[in-house]
């Protein structure tokens, strides 16, 4: 059953159509990749799902909830969280605070309780901190909770961002180029990590990936998007053989296409 369904979604910027009548399904419990050349509209589509952009036509459903016009915070509360292509942590907040912010959809107690110091509030906070520490350990950042996010090394920032997204207990996790800026070995580890996420937390993962090798190795299904339109869909093997995909990548001479040979193929 599809957890996320997009029907004929169209998004225009002035005269430019960034996403064009996009039909798309994400089966529950799967890992699905959205691939395509630079500027194909992948991130724009993410922004449409999370409510950051309102889109012009079509509908997006998530677990039978309509997402059209829903504000981002309410989308997050439905169970969709995300990471960003160029890591967007709260840089001047500590790692643990970043995760605590990610936990927002779970937190209930308001500000009056905080002023009078109610027991319910204190319990909730204590529980949240405990949970945040677990998540830190889960992503391999144990004991780094008090470091400011900006002072973490690049790879740790990536993992912290994923931990923050996981903190909201999402049923659909959107990852925007999770291996961007990583060397091949780090990318391999990230792929394993993402698989584990799905297997052990039983969540659905939709990711944008620029590195074809990574995308092919991790996804059960791929959707290729170019100029805002879907040009192909299927399993990794089907996509690799699809002439339109090859044309979209090689025809325009995109550097990160199928021909990349900077990573060890056996590792993936």
């Amino acid at each position, binding site marked *: 059953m599809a957890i996320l369904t997009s029907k004929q979604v169209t998004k225009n*910027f*002035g005269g430019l159509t960034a996403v064009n009548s996009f039909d798309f399904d994400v089966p529950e419990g799967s890992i699905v990749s959205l691939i395509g050349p630079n500027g194909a509209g992948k*991130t*724009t589509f*993410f*922004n449409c799902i999370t409510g*950051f*952009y309102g889109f012009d036509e079509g*509908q997006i459903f998530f677990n039978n*909830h*309509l*997402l*059209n*016009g*829903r*504000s981002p915070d*309410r989308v997050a509360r439905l169970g969709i969280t995300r990471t*960003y292509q160029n890591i967007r942590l709260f840089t001047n907040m500590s790692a643990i605070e970043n995760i605590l912010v990610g936990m927002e959809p779970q937190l209930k107690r308001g500000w009056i309780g905080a002023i009078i110091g109610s027991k319910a509030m204190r319990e909730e906070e204590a529980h949240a901190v405990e949970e945040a520490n677990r998540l830190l350990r889960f992503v391999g950042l144990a004991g780094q909770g008090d470091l400011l996010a900006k002072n973490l090394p690049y790879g740790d920032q990536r993992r912290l961002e994923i931990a923050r997204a996981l903190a909201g207990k999402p049923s659909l996790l959107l990852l925007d180029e999770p291996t961007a800026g990583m060397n091949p070995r780090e990318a391999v580890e990230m792929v394993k990590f993402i698989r584990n996420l799905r297997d052990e937390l039983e969540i659905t993962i939709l990711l944008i990936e620029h590195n074809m090798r990574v995308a092919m190795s991790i996804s059960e299904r791929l959707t290729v998007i170019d100029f805002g339109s879907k040009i192909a869909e299927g399993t990794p093997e089907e996509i690799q053989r699809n002439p339109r995909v090859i044309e979209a990548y090689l025809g325009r001479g995109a550097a990160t296409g199928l021909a990349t040979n900077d990573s060890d193929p056996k590792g993936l």
Partner: protein
Amino acid sequence: MQTTIRQRFENIDYLDIALWVLRIVIIVAVLWGTVATILDNPYSTEQWLDFLIFGLAQGSLYALIALGYTLVYGVLLMINFAHGEFFMAGIFTATVFVAIPLDASGFTDRHPIWALLVIAVVAIATSMGIAVLTERVAYRPLRRAPRLVPLITAIGASFFWQYFFRGLYGSGITAFPDVALLKGSWTILGLEILKSQVVVIVASVLMLIGLYIFVMRTRMGKAMRAVSEDKDVAALMGIDVDRVIMITFAVGAAMAGAAGVLYALMYRQVHFFMGFFPGLKAFTAAVLGGIGSVPGAALGGLLLGLFESVGPCLFLEGLGITSPYQLKDVIAFTMLVLVLLVRPQGIMGERLAEKKA
């Protein structure tokens, strides 16, 4: 499909509803006031025309000052809060050191054109000097800082210069000497228009056109536009970004300095606080026209001047508000809010105000 409609209603943002109510209330109030005023018709046609001409003159001053905001915002994405002070500094200095001595010595009466020219040169040079100094000392070290930091610095610079010049030249209102040549009025198309107002409007329009040509045609203008597109790429292309930014400040300040001279001709007085509110109004004008756009600043300035001069009588009098002219600043600020609510990119803003992801 039924559920879809219900869900659509669920997804509506209450804030949007509140904002729509607000827009409608303001528009209805303005229309109501206008209709009531027109039906009542307390002013003669001539009076309305006077309001219009005054509004045009005032608006062209706003337009000249607004250019500074627009240019600087274009290259730095920063509201140069101290820009109104550049406007004040030039004409205040020129009045104290040039206009008054020249008038006392009788030079102004003998060679009014030369006198005005010297006054303008001194005013413009001072404005430019203060602007370049401010940019170098207060803004340049903060190029990469979070956005609010340079804004706070600019607020600091604004008050610093106000009270600096207050200390320098005194806190009172200084009279700008009369120029006999510009006294009285001309009759144009059957309308009697004050000479000073004609000069203000004509000079402003010429300068606006000149600046537009500068930005669109010259090398430096192209460099400015390149920097405003992307500073880093411009630097890679061999453009000296610091120099371009400095010149942008200087050009904006030159316009402000010239506006200062015209202001003095129109109101015949200068004081240390004279830059603050015109500065705010000019910023409003820049936003109204679409910040970052030169023709937008011109259009926004003229519109704001007109609204401010015609508005109190047209919109407010009809609502039964006593002494509506006291509330003309309310009109300007309400317009600012309204523009940001209805069309944040301004009238001529090209770029869509969508946030970047």
